[in-house]
């Protein structure tokens, strides 16, 4: 055993947990840690421009790669700036490890300069958090936190370390063993329940699979494919489940929810059996709970027992990891054909295509996404902000693999786009990474462009510039009698901004320029910004209005299609 300072222990422990990157920002109480960083060349520190960016970068890193992302902030404002990012990761169950410094122990609880009770503040948005009061507690605190972060249903954790704990020396005692009496995720799935689920599947005439984020985090997409193909079950995903099932597959029927495909919503609403895998029956996905498909039977497979029965009663609850449960379920499932049922959905899709892009001389946002899809052969990693552009990116790009779409679903955090794309690019340096940004959301975190330059990351920034908080304009237009209040925004010249950061930029003003601009961006080695001056008035369709049921999905009104 060696004697190390708390700062050394922290970095040593993180390294042993496989951490290769920290997204962080310095401050007084974490200076001992920064002082020690050069001793750990295996850990790359990415200096962000705002701690919110650090948390989103760690999240983007995690979502794109499946590995735990780490962010770091100083006490007080540094820590509170992380909160939006931690909550974003909490709502979408992604493994983000937040490390914060705090004031020296003798000042804790005395409102010391830059003291914030960050463990108290983050209780309800972390899986667990630690306030470490002794240097010798650091290794096991980090080990437990990393374990909790990445196992079971993943989620953010926070470890808070006072400044003098970083400075104090102690024996570094690394324990491989973890023993948490209060944390034993159930991963196997109950054999009897799996048998009952198979019986229901074998009897069903209109079964549908709803695949969620849990399929991606459970690394169960292959197992899902096997089950769907064997039993001939149509698959729809949730918004966060996009990529869990290849969208080019015959059995793929898109995704459901507020802006999901009409036929996906109808299929979910008309099924006699819903096989819900790694999803939590969110209101954005299910519409008005009370009127979702009355009479449907639900098989709910989830690693988190608290999700089962939370919003909908399950006929068969299965607590377990999709990766373990699905093969056992497939084994007991009979080969089947659901020709009638699939023809019915096919018919609905033919009559209500949802993803058809009308001919128009305008630069329709849908057209921009589809062109990006064509130009990138559907291979790029797409990272989005929140709003209309997010929905179009989900709809009009067709995803083939898990982790291909990185987006804030549960919290819906504007400003996620650029930093999350940076994190994704750091995690996968060779993946073509596009940040699809709202002109509003981009301005919440645009300072992170400096990180692209510092780290020479070839992220392609595509701003969907409609001069509006588009989703707000859409709601005011549809539900507030066109009373547009503060939805329009005077935008800066994004190209000049990029230029100021030393990033190349192209303003794209006509439809004809879209494809060439994308080609140029792809050919460019470094980061680049494309300012797409998209049609300003376009709305996202289909739509399940707030409080409506999936069966009440409405499609684009004729006058909008004639625009």
């Amino acid at each position, binding site marked *: 055993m060696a004697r190390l300072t708390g700062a050394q222990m922290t970095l040593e422990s993180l390294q042993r947990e496989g951490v290769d990157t920290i997204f962080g920002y310095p401050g*007084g*109480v974490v*200076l001992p840690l920064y002082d020690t960083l050069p001793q750990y060349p295996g850990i790359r520190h990415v200096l962000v421009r705002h701690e919110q960016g650090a948390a989103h970068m760690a999240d983007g890193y995690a979502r794109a790669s499946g590995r735990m992302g780490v962010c770091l902030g100083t006490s007080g404002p540094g820590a509170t700036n992380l909160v939006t990012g931690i909550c974003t990761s909490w709502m979408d169950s992604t493994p983000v490890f937040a490390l914060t410094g705090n*004031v*020296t*122990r*003798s*000042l804790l609880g005395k409102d*010391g*300069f*830059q003291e914030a009770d960050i*463990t*108290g503040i983050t*209780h*309800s948005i972390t*899986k*667990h958090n*630690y*306030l*470490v*009061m*002794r240097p010798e*507690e650091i290794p*096991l*605190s980090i080990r437990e936190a990393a374990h*909790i972060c990445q196992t079971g249903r993943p989620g953010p954790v926070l470890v808070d370390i006072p*400044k*003098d704990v970083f400075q104090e020396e102690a024996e570094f*005692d690394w*324990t491989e*063993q*973890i*023993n*948490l*009496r*209060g*944390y034993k995720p159930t991963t196997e799935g109950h054999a009897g329940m799996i048998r009952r689920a198979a019986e229901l599947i074998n009897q069903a005439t209109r079964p549908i699979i709803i695949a969620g984020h849990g399929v991606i985090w459970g690394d169960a997409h292959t197992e899902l494919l096997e089950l769907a193909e064997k039993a001939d079950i149509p698959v729809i995903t949730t918004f966060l489940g996009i990529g869990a099932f290849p969208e080019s597959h015959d059995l793929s029927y898109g995704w459901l929810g507020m802006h999901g495909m009409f036929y996906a919503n109808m299929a979910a609403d008309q099924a006699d059996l819903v096989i819900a895998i790694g999803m939590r029956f969110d209101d954005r996905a299910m519409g008005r709970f009370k009127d979702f498909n009355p009479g449907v039977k639900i098989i709910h497979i989830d690693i*988190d*027992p*608290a999700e089962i*029965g*939370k919003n909908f009663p399950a006929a068969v609850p299965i607590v377990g990891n999709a990766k373990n449960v699905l093969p056992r379920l497939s084994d007991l499932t009979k080969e089947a054909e659901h020709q009638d049922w699939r023809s019915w959905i096919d018919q609905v899709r033919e009559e209500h295509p949802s993803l058809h892009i009308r001919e128009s001389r305008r630069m329709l946002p849908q057209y921009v996404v589809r062109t990006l899809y064509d130009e990138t052969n559907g291979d790029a990693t797409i990272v989005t902000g929140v709003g209309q552009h997010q929905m179009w990116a989900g709809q009009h790009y067709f995803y083939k693999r898990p982790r291909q779409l990185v987006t804030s679903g549960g919290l819906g955090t504007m400003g996620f786009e650029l930093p999350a794309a940076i994190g994704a690019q750091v995690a996968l340096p060779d993946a073509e990474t596009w940040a699809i940004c709202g002109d509003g959301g981009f301005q919440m975190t645009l300072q992170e462009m400096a990180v692209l330059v510092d780290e020479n990351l070839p992220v392609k920034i595509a701003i969907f510039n409609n001069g509006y908080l588009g989703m707000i304009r859409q709601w005011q237009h549809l539900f507030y009698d066109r009373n547009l209040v503060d939805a329009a925004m005077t935008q800066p010249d994004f190209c000049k901004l990029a230029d100021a950061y030393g990033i190349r930029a192209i303003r794209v003003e006509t439809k004809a320029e879209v494809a060439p601009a994308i080609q140029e961006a792809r050919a460019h080695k470094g980061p680049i910004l494309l300012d797409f001056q998209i049609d300003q008035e376009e709305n996202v369709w289909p739509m399940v209005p707030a409080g409506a049921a999936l069966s009440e999905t409405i499609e684009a009104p004729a006058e909008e299609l004639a625009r």
Partner: protein
Amino acid sequence: MNPSANGSRARHAQHTVVAIVEDKPGVLMRVASLFRRRGFNIESLTVGYSEAPGLSRMTIVVDGASAPVEQVEKQLYKLIDVVKVTDLSNEDMVARELAMLKVRCNNVNRHELLDIANVFRADVVDIATNSIILQVVGDEDKIDGLVKMCEPYGIRELSRTGRIAMVRGAKTTTVHEPEPEKIAKFHATQGRRVEGELPFSSD
């Protein structure tokens, strides 16, 4: 916790849940904030050491109308520091509460109060010229009854502990899972304040 003016509670469906939790700083806050966030109303919450070192036993009475007990249990289990949760609602249980009442009295009516205390098997734990402290143990109904009887004399102070409960017979809510020594040591100190004078440095 919504005691009405006379210290008794509105009677409706309640769940009695026993949680075995790690004896660590912040556990009470985690549990309380979970209940607040999920909208589960706490009628009473009582916590103290248990038979196992390092573990505390919490008895929580939840307003049944505010929460399906199954969700309460599952959400509690999600807290890492919660080791075991048992719902006693459908068990044959012994439930008790302790209360202390400081009641106004004088030389004339003191004996009446002593009679009342006697009927409720309450103990007199303090006596002065113009007040008396009664201590009573029992289920909530019994305590409500005593409170009601004392009201006409003037209750100056009422303090109730909230319910603790055990299942009758051999069944327990105990956890039999000792931790490896090193980990037990870590969990025993984790997050606790360091004793003694600490160096001062301000940044």
